[in-house]
């Protein structure tokens, strides 16, 4: 791994913050899986369980005004950038109280307020879009950056390289975050991708990058800070290939027969990002088991409330079918 090992002198507050954020995503996704099983969430539902450290680490490197955009595996990104779990869960259930009034669903959610630009269902389409957000910031002359997330599967799409070319050519302040969870749906990286290290593809465009341990939130944050500094300084794009792992199938309807149960269990046992921070909190005597239990309880409460809200929020009014197709001139 190219990144430094997590520093042991990280403050208690910071560790607790990461712990809470990651745990919120974990519990939220478990609940979403449960609601899917109950038929309350329909269609495709791609869970982020296992990958929590990626978004939590990178959000810790962001500042107000920075933008983020990702694919359809987007629940974690939304929670990490501060969107309300109630609004996210209610969108999953297709209700009026959802971020898109129930009209977007799991894969298509947005928050202008939190600078979250989706939630895109077409693999890799978000990559040029993210570069375009960065283009707008550069055009306006501010120093914001855009975190553009995509997976190892998307990394084989042609538009990614069209975007690398233009982002490098025009020095766009965009951080390309390759969330390499090693499986493009059911096809492992070895079977789909000619290069072992995807970030190296950026070199042919002159885009610097590195591999990051995506199961270590502190390593992700440190790499994120480095990438952000590069972009804010006007040096153009940066690539972070974050090695991560999803515990669940590609979507709720994926039985994940392409990998062994043992492989998944080994990752959970040895590399889990939440356990890692929990251990640091306990061994560093930053938090007692009781304190951590209290945190778990608080998180569970937030998630349960979001689920209740998502069940109770009414379905969108029927005339919503015909709204938001065209914007009215201001």
């Amino acid at each position, binding site marked *: 791994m190219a990144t430094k090992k997590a520093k042991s002198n990280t403050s208690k507050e910071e560790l607790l913050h990461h712990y809470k954020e990651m745990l919120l995503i974990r519990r939220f996704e478990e609940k979403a899986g449960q609601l899917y099983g109950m038929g309350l969430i329909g269609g495709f539902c791609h869970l982020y369980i296992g990958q929590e450290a990626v978004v939590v680490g990178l959000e810790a490197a962001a500042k107000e005004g920075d*933008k983020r*955009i990702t694919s359809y595996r987007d629940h974690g990104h939304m929670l990490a950038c501060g969107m309300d779990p109630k609004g996210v869960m209610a969108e999953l259930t297709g209700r009026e109280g*959802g*971020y*898109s*009034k*129930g*009209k*977007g669903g799991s894969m*298509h*959610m*947005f*928050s*202008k307020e939190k600078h979250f*630009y*989706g*939630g*895109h*269902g*077409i693999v890799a*389409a978000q*990559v*040029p*879009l*993210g*570069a*375009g*957000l*960065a*283009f*707008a*910031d550069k*055009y*306006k002359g501010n120093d914001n950056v855009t975190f553009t997330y995509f997976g190892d599967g998307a990394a084989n799409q*042609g*538009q990614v390289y*069209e*975007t690398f*070319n*233009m982002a490098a*050519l025009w020095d766009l302040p965009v951080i390309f975050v390759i969330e390499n969870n090693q499986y493009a749906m059911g096809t492992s990286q070895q079977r789909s991708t000619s290069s072992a290290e995807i970030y190296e593809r950026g070199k042919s465009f002159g885009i610097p990058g590195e591999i990051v341990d995506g199961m270590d939130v502190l390593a992700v944050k440190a790499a994120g800070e480095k990438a952000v500094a590069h972009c804010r300084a006007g040096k153009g794009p940066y690539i972070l290939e974050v090695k991560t792992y999803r515990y669940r199938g590609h979507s709720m309807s994926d039985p994940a027969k392409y990998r062994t149960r043992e492989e998944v269990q080994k990752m959970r046992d040895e590399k889990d990002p939440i356990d890692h921070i929990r251990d640091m909190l306990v061994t560093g005597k930053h938090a007692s088991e009781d304190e951590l239990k209290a945190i778990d309880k608080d998180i569970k409460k937030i998630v349960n409330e979001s689920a209740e809200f998502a069940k109770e929020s009414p379905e969108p009014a029927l005339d919503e079918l015909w*709204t*938001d*197709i*065209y*914007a*009215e*001139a*201001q």
Partner: protein
Amino acid sequence: MATEILMPALSPTMEEGTLAKWLVKEGDTVQSGDIMAEIETDKATMEFEAVDEGTIGKILVAEGTAGVKVNTAIAVLLEDGESASDVAQAASAPAAASEPQAAPAPAAQAKAPVQVNVVEEDLPEGTTFKTQTVREALRDAMSEEMRSNDDVYLMGEEVAEYQGAYKISQGMLDEFGSKRVIDTPITEHGFAGIAVGAAFGGLRPIVEFMTFNFAMQAIDQIINSAAKTLYMSGGQMGAPMVFRGPNGAAARVGAQHSQDYAAWYAQIPGLKVVQPYSAADAKGLLKSAIRDPNPVIFLENEILYGQSFDVPDVEDYTVPLGKARIWREGTDITLVSFGIGMKYTLEAADRLAAEGVSAEVIDLRCLRPMDTAAVIKSVMKTNRCVTIEEGFPVCSIGNHLSAVLMQEAFDYLDAPVINCTGKDVPMPYAANLEKLALVTTDEVVAAANSVLYR
């Protein structure tokens, strides 16, 4: 033998040009490859090279002459040993074949010609007009909007330093600089996506596709990202932007470069689709499209770029999207078209008028939203309708209009609606087949006669 040097065709659609400058004079000897003249087309100034070697015997067209038709003799080239007296021989050679005369219209059953009522737009009294090409009108529209809104910028292939592949953006780089007039690599999918992202981020991009044929590479970003995001975000964010460029058949460029996408884009909720005919509409509609808070597909036509029209000489001339224009009023039949289809439609209307048929001509101008109310209103008066477009016949704009008329004006129709379209074939290259593949004025007249039971 002395040979004539003919005015060359320097682009697929060039019909005439200006002999800007001779670089040789009478008596000069030239080798194959020598540059003899500079010829200005409506798109560019090109150097014209000698193909054969010889001596320039006579220059037939003086430099500075405009409107020189392609294939006109512009000079005479003498071979070794020939003298100026041989010039006459060459000059008397038969001229290039001219277009055959159209067959005279059958006069026997024709009624007296009808009086044509050309409908002027609703403009303030005393409005003056200036003559402009569609090309100039489009550039003025973009430049005016860029002057008034810093968030508007233009990106596309060859839009900046090359001054536009079709010279639409001529001079814009000089005025607005490389920050706002941006050359892209030839990667439609990527730069269309970047522009959509920039629109999400608060800018107002104008994306020029060198032609809409290449926009198929980018169609996912246009439809899935630009058109649908407003809806998917519950109204939080959308893509206020314009995708523009030439669409439809040019001339002799074959199947992959000759297609009308009107019906494709007109199907998509979230998009607005404009296809202007005249320069005035090109200007007024493009300005409205740039200001519109939604993604607008703006379909131009290469053959129309060089055509001149009267454009209202008023400050900030705009035309609202979604409103058809009645070009001429009539009582016997409604002809509905848009874009270059209007050319055949207006020609057909003239011919019908000479035969005593009063045709009302409607230019839809905008295909989404489509002003079907204007068509229905007209059909309630004329009871007959023919639609005209250059696109393919299956699931065409005309098909849609026919269905609307059937549902909403069935009782007013005295005959089935006929759709005149391009043929259901990929565009052939051969000149005669290409002509056959396109919609023609003859077909429009025949369709009109058919629904009039004449």
